[in-house]
């Protein structure tokens, strides 16, 4: 029931961001296939290994590269919602007098977000996969498929930050700001530590690179770290929310 | 039977209901074996607590004004045949005492007090 309400609140944003994350990587994916003929720009269709490889590489780089930014943005935008956003309107006095524990509402809101982020990452990957298949008959795209759960984890980290921020600041708008500031702070600290002392903080690039470039071993440690972080956010939100007075 | 209660008068509602029923019986507006509305119906019609109505009905039954039938339903009792005259007089005495005390307090003459009581009896038609 609460899931229905969360969906109702987020469906417009979901459609908007879904369109964005699907549409933007298309052009860079297709760049090896553009040809200028006397009739204007057309797309080349070719099943030769050279072309196929070029197309697959550009697909992976587009999905990972654009995805890094797009899914972060989408995650933050979608995460600034949930129970934290019900403080200002005042509907928590109604919601929390329904016979459910407070953590039920925290986790249902988060799970709706998981499904939405999963939809975004899978549809985006599916569209890219279809384009590559259509133009080159290339199907050895296991690396694209492998990127989907990684993108999902990344999106959920940002979603979780905004979700937690919304509970902490009691408003979606401020939760969004919280997530953006936290991200910027992390990037700056990361950069400084790297430059001054050569210390490497966990990053997403380290997670994606082994899959996109191949060759290097897969970073299971990083995956575990970021998954734990993504789950820690709703846990922290639950802990805070259970103790608050309404 | 139409009853009216005034919740803000400071007088308990059950007493108001009892007084009105007794008055109706005394004025022969309610005759023996007339049915009274059920507790729930009267409470709903007056928008008051059913417990209040139940209490009034209980007291009326204790005073012999009404009787309840085992299957439910309340009816006006039959002229309280079971009560001896001495008992009736004993019941009325405190009210007479109150009239006497109040009358003296207000410095009314005994004749004026008696005249008042006669006027009230006349209004009720003087029926027994």
């Amino acid at each position, binding site marked *: *029931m609460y899931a*229905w*309400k969360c969906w*109702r*609140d987020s469906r417009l944003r979901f459609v908007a961001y879904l369109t964005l994350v699907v549409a933007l990587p298309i052009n860079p994916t297709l760049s090896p296939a553009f040809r200028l003929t006397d009739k204007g720009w057309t797309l080349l269709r070719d099943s030769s290994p050279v072309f196929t490889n070029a197309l697959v590489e550009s697909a992976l780089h587009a999905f990972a590269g654009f995805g890094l930014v797009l899914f972060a943005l989408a995650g933050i935008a979608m995460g600034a919602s949930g129970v934290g956003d019900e403080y200002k*309107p*005042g*509907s*928590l*006095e*109604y919601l*929390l*007098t*329904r*016979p*459910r*524990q407070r953590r039920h509402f925290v986790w249902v809101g988060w799970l709706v977000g998981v499904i939405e982020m999963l939809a975004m990452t899978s549809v985006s990957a599916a569209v890219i996969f279809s384009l590559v298949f259509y133009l080159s008959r290339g199907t050895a795209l296991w690396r694209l498929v492998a990127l989907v759960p990684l993108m999902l984890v990344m999106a959920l980290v940002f979603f979780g930050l905004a979700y937690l921020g919304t509970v902490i600041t009691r408003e979606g708008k401020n939760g969004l700001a919280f997530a953006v500031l936290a991200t910027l702070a992390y990037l700056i600290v990361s950069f400084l530590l790297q430059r001054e002392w050569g210390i490497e903080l966990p990053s997403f690039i380290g997670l994606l690179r082994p899959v996109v470039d191949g060759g290097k071993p897969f970073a299971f440690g990083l995956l575990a770290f970021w998954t734990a972080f993504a789950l820690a956010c709703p846990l922290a939100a639950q802990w805070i929310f259970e*103790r608050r*007075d*309404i | 039977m139409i009853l009216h209660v005034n*919740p*803000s*008068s*400071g*007088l*308990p*509602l*059950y007493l108001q209901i009892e007084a009105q029923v007794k008055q109706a019986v005394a004025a022969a507006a309610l005759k023996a074996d007339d049915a009274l509305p059920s507790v*729930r119906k009267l*409470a*709903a019609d*007056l*928008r*008051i*607590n*059913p*417990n*209040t109505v139940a209490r009034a009905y209980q007291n009326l039954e204790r005073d012999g004004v009404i009787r309840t039938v085992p299957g439910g339903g309340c009816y006006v009792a039959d002229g309280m045949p079971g009560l001896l005259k001495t008992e009736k007089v004993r019941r009325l005495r405190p009210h007479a005492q109150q009239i006497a005390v109040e009358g003296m*307090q207000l410095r009314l003459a005994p004749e004026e007090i008696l005249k008042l009581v006669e006027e009230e009896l006349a209004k009720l038609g003087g029926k027994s």
Partner: protein
Amino acid sequence: MSDLAISTQGLVKVYSKLRAVDGLDLSVPRGAVYGFLGRNGAGKTTTMKALLGLVHSDAGSATVLGMDVRQHLTAILKRTAFVSENKILYDGFTPAELVRFNCGFYPRWQVDAVEKLARRLDIPMRQKYGKLSKGNRTKVCLLLALAQNAELLILDEPTSGLDPVMIDEVLRILVEDHVGAGRTVFFSTHQLAEVEQVADWVGIIDHGKLLVEARLDDLRDQFRLILAAGDSLPALGAPNLISATRAGRTGRYVVSRDGEEFAARLRQHGAQIVEIAPLSLREVFLELVRKEEACTPGNAGAIPVSASSLT
């Protein structure tokens, strides 16, 4: 304790420096219709929130339907229906959708009962909640609560924004369907006339403490206004004296019990009793809660009165 629907022992809730609830000992019998009265800011809403787990108390305990609020909140909420003071739900949903949303939480919900009630309350079911007037919003909140068929109704200002005709209808619905068969109604309101109609118990809270908790009929039987006249009206102190004012040769006394006895004492001092009258609930409330200036020493403004001091 199982014959009490609600019971608190020494309940305390502090906000910064303000003691919103300050050692509250509430006892609401099962099956009672209990009017919970107090000025704005006296602690009514905070008390209700503490009973429903919306706020965490700082000291003392609260028991609802025999269960501790801190440990069995969800079980309590299954059997309790609540209308909050702010009447805020989801603006983007229509009442029909809110009913659908709400009934998902309660398996024993009855759809046709809800429809009947919605018609009686005259609710526009297809307009978005955010666009409804205050009165209509109150009606929707009442609909959701009443349709739950709960053992205990906790209602904070359940008739706010309603016109007299609709208030009357709501009282009728409450009396018909929700009083009796062991169901309890605990409600707060500023409409004292409503309380006088349907309540059998009354509790008056002021500055976080209970001033009085008694059967409404006992209040009516025992509170008395005494008007006296005399050249030298005595300054009588008594535990049952709530207020005393004197102007010239007349004195006005309000007592919480034993009015005849107090009047007799006044007579002994040579005063003449003009009237001994009962008080409406509104008058009792004002006497207890308003701090009148005392005319003479030995009198107090509001004196704490408990049920035991009334019997």
